[in-house]
């Protein structure tokens, strides 16, 4: 524990700015993954235990696309769509077979897939850490705020994620598609009796969740290094986020993710050994006080 370091950081504006922006981008990436996880759980009542692997795939897809085309925009869009399609195939061919089985089977199918994908990534891209570096468009001097550093890419990442958050909330709460998804979540049998293809809805939601994870992976490439198995820690963190925010709530996922991102980034200064522990304390407290999460509906 190093409270002195934490206090001296908190008293200097530049350190606060640097840590806050760092925490914000981790939180934003976490939000994209957690929102997909939460959306899939809220609609299908199934936890996609391999969601972290989709994030990993997104990162590797973007890495390859960027090296092939030289355009980061193409890389991000291509990776997100690619992972979305992959998630759809996974849902149709494997996951949909175990919807009626118990949780154990769903966990096992995903566990098998995590192992396969981690090894496949090792075979295709190698076992070493890869890093892409900042795309050319963002290689410009960082903005200095009160002595703290704010890289331009961070602004871009935060902007894109907020845009996605707003779009997602709009689609789910205001549009006809969102209504169908919510109806299918509450009563799939009745929804399908009304002539709606619920298999299509479930597949679509799964693909959307995958797309968000892929997008997060692609956006993370310039600021994170790539390695097989990188998806697992983000899976655990995004689960913690959904527990804190409430399963199935996009707003909750955003708040939860930002909180966790900030706790992490300031925690590494004050409690270097216990950063993860802080998140758990936080989650345990929420579970005890409000088991359905800060923004979850009480059942």
């Amino acid at each position, binding site marked *: 524990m190093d409270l002195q370091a934490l206090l001296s950081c908190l008293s200097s504006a530049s350190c606060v700015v640097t840590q806050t922006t760092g925490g914000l981008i981790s939180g934003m990436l976490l939000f994209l993954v957690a929102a997909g996880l939460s959306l899939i*759980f809220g609609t299908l*009542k199934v*936890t996609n235990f391999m969601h972290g692997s989709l994030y990993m795939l997104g990162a590797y897809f973007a890495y390859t696309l960027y090296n092939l085309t030289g355009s980061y925009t193409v890389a991000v869009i291509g990776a997100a769509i690619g992972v979305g399609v992959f998630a759809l195939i996974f849902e149709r061919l*494997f996951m949909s*077979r*175990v*919807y*009626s*089985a*118990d*949780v*154990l*089977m769903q*966990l*096992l*199918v995903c*566990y*098998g*897939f*995590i*192992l*396969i994908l*981690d*090894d*496949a990534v*090792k*075979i295709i891209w190698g076992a070493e850490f890869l890093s892409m570096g900042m795309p050319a468009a963002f290689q410009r001097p960082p903005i200095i705020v009160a002595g703290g550093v704010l890289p331009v890419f961070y602004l871009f990442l935060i902007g894109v994620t907020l845009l996605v958050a707003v779009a997602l909330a709009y689609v789910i709460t205001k549009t006809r598609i969102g209504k169908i998804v919510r109806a299918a979540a509450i009563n*799939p*049998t009745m929804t*399908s009796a009304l002539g709606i293809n*619920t*298999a299509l809805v479930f597949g679509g939601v799964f693909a959307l969740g995958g797309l968000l994870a892929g997008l997060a992976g692609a956006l993370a490439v310039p600021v994170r290094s790539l390695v097989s198995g990188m998806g*697992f*820690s983000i899976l*655990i963190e995004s*689960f*913690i986020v959904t*527990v804190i925010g409430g399963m199935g709530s996009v707003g909750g996922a955003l708040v939860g993710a930002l909180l966790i991102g900030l706790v992490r980034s300031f925690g590494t200064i004050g409690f*270097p*050994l*216990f950063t*993860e*522990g802080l998140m*758990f304390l936080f*989650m*345990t407290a929420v*579970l*005890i006080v409000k*088991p359905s999460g800060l923004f979850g509906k009480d059942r």
Partner: protein
Amino acid sequence: MPRSTLTRDLLFAVGGLVLLVVLPLVFPEKAFSDFVIRLSAFAIYATSLNLLIGYGGMVSFGHGLFYGLGAYSFALLMQKMGTSIPLAFALTILVNGAVAAVIGAICIRLKEIYFSFLTLAFQMLLHSLIIAWTAVTGGDQGLTGGVPRPPFLGIRLDEPRHLYLFCCAVLVISLFLMRHLVQSPFGYTLRMIRDNPRRAEFLGIPVWRVRLLAFVAAGIFGGVGGMLISLFVSSAYPDFAYWTVSGEGVFMILLGGMKVFLGPLVGAAILLVLNDTVTRLTEHYSLVLGIVILVFALGLRSGLLGLVADLWTKRAARSRRIAQTPAQARTERH
């Protein structure tokens, strides 16, 4: 538990022990006794997990926590404190029981997937603690310096023959105790809670307490498995607490069959053989394991021993089998 069942189980245990003592005379290779030692650790661990999954209907995906915790507490006690082996065993059981009580108290109120994930999350907390706390645990290199094996009661564990016999004895005793537990009224209460928790509650059964006790028992025996492995490799590695250990435990249960008491033992043996064969042939162990898991999860659901048991049911007495999997199986969604 009826007296005859107890006698039968006792005979079974003694027979198993005699078999394990005799087997090295037939297979004198070191590879064989090493295999049995590793199997004893994994079999105790997998069977303890089955107390939760098969008998309690609580799908823990973080049981590797107790395996890793057992390995590290035992190794650290032996290495840093210089305690005797029996004392270190007892203290590790205490540590595991206490940690299981705290984590269990937080987790068991939660339903299904929340329970699975939260147990997993706690395991990853331990793992990251082991990695970060380099001064005590040696970080990602694992404990260096070895685990001493001082003699006690005439047992010298630094001698391979003694170590082998010791692990066999711990295996048989642990399995016998767990068998006794699941055949006791407590075990049947646990099954009842698995099948219909609400009914159990109406009957005045303290559901929460029974579940917590099962969680603590499973945590203790999971730790015993970890102790054996740290005794064998004379160290402890962060991999013992990594989430894949939990996944492997669940898969061992599925491989052997969760409805038969010795299913996890058989599953552990199969997975170890598979592991040894595949790693000899290819470096892509995860890929092969992942495919095998998919085949089992989507195809052979009751496990190998479960399959045999199903064929056997017509003859076997009903009491030998555990009732069908819980009604928690979801209703068809489409």
